[in-house]
């Protein structure tokens, strides 16, 4: 397999994500509005701890163990939450708007793409949760690409974006089984697999991904991993505060997370208890591995600096005073471009 010369990447600062799903909708409006894509959320945001989307995806296998492919499961449409049908016609156009309310049609759903929102974990007064946004990780060692018997999946040489060629794809779904992040979807109308394309048509025009640009919380940084002037290199390589999700899956993701720091705990007397973190270390280690503990230390150290009135280059970078600085040069305004949709 030819290796990519450069790699585009994304860093998501979990301390800033407010779970508003603007990224999710930005992606949905742009890419997954066609028939057969109703249930797809190439970008999803789930509350952690939680079962995620698709339901219990972390128990579905895939990826690699000790360098060898590990079998994986196919999630069902129900696991993804499916697409609910509503009685829009009746409520909005049927003249019954004052009598009937909007409700799901057919069988009562028992899961949705954001079903366990804000449930989180822990007990009062030390309950905790945070939001975990996810897209395709455009892995350096993509399990999907390696699983496909038709070589329908490729990793672009110029920027490492992983794409499915829908003309070569025959809908076998080995990629879906193999992806340990369960970020590949099956279009049952077109009978092909589809997934996040890292907004490559925007990227090619110098425009950052829709999910990143639309984010009201300035959560998402975009750029090349090897660009020392860009935010990715600084956060991943230099400060080492951004780390991949589930590195043990062996695919080497190119989406990195700045781990969340919750407010301090209370002890039984109601006093602040800083002997341990509110979000248990073991929970974060279960998601990001032990490097998360070093990342938290760096973050806490730099936060302490600013709290003491000092300056922190890292905190300034994470706060993102200049919005456009988040996009590693991909800061062109999409409204200045004439876009065409290919047939």
């Amino acid at each position: 397999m030819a290796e990519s010369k450069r790699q585009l990447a994304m860093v998501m600062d979990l301390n800033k994500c407010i779970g508003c799903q603007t990224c999710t909708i930005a992606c949905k409006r742009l890419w997954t509005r066609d028939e057969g894509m109703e249930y797809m959320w190439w970008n999803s945001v789930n509350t952690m701890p939680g079962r995620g989307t698709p339901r219990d995806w972390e128990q579905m296998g895939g990826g690699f163990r000790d360098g060898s492919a590990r079998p994986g499961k196919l999630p069902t449409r129900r696991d993804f939450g499916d697409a609910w049908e509503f009685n829009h016609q009746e409520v909005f156009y049927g003249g019954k708007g004052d009598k009937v309310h909007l409700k799901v049609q057919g069988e009562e759903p028992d899961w949705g793409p954001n079903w366990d929102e804000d449930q989180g974990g822990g007990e009062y007064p030390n309950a905790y949760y945070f939001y975990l946004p996810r897209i395709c990780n455009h892995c350096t060692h993509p399990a999907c690409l390696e699983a496909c018997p038709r070589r329908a999946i490729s990793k672009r040489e110029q920027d490492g974006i992983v794409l499915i060629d829908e003309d070569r794809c025959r809908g076998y779904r080995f990629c879906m089984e193999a992806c340990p992040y369960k970020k590949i979807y099956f279009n049952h109308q077109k009978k092909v697999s589809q997934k996040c394309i890292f907004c490559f048509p925007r990227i090619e025009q110098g425009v950052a991904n829709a999910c990143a640009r639309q984010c009201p919380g300035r959560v998402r940084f975009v750029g090349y991993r090897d660009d020392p002037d860009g935010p990715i290199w600084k956060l991943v390589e230099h400060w080492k505060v951004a780390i991949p999700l589930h590195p043990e899956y062996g695919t080497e993701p190119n989406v990195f997370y700045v781990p969340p720091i919750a407010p301090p705990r209370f002890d039984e007397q109601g006093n602040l208890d800083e002997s341990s973190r509110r979000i248990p270390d073991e929970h974060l280690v279960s998601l990001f591995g032990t490097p998360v503990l070093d990342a938290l230390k760096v973050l806490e150290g730099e936060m302490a600096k600013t709290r003491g009135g000092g300056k922190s280059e890292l905190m300034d970078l994470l706060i993102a005073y200049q919005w456009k600085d988040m996009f590693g040069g991909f800061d062109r305004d999409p409204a200045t471009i004439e876009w065409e949709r290919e047939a």
Partner: protein
Amino acid sequence: MKARYVGGHDLQTLLDPESTVWQHSRAEAIRMMGTPSGMQPTAAIRVAWPDARIGAIDRVSVASVHDGRHLAFRIEWKDESENRTIDDTTSFADAAAVLLPSVKGAPIITMGAPGLAVNAWYWRADEDGSGRQVVAEGIGTTRTVDRKLVVGRGIWKDGRWRVVLARPMRVESPEPLAQLHPGDTTGFGVAVWEGSRGERAGIKSFSGDWRKLQLAALPQARR
């Protein structure tokens, strides 16, 4: 197996898996085997599909006829589940195919080889009515070259599939397709996929080495 000559029928009759043409044709019983796990093209497939899981359908019966213009096969097999739709991420459709060598010496076990193409006539239950003409030159190289020339019709009744696959014997195409002539002898193979067991791609039952196929000569008056 002999592809019997049948004259005086229209194509629709040949394509009907329950027509009298097929009732009067002697079918050959063929033992099927699962494709070897070790030959699957990717590691992810090999670990997920050990030999014991591959090849749900262990026997089929196959008959063949031609009318001088079209060659048709009828494949019949026992299948408790009719998997006609792919409406969930986890559902797969039943399928069947006939494989023919496009050139002499094309290997069947590896689905052809570079320069030695094989030609599959493929039917899948969710695409019933239209078949696929597929060319391969080695494992993992299959490509659909047209969806017009091969016609496939399947009927599932009483726990059995009866599927007819037909194509004009001679076709004009820049692709390496099997060209067939009455009186010729060639080889054929059969493959069946059991949708309810997740069989697709190289995960299938197949009939082993090339089997002999004799295309009956045209009767004197038609030559």
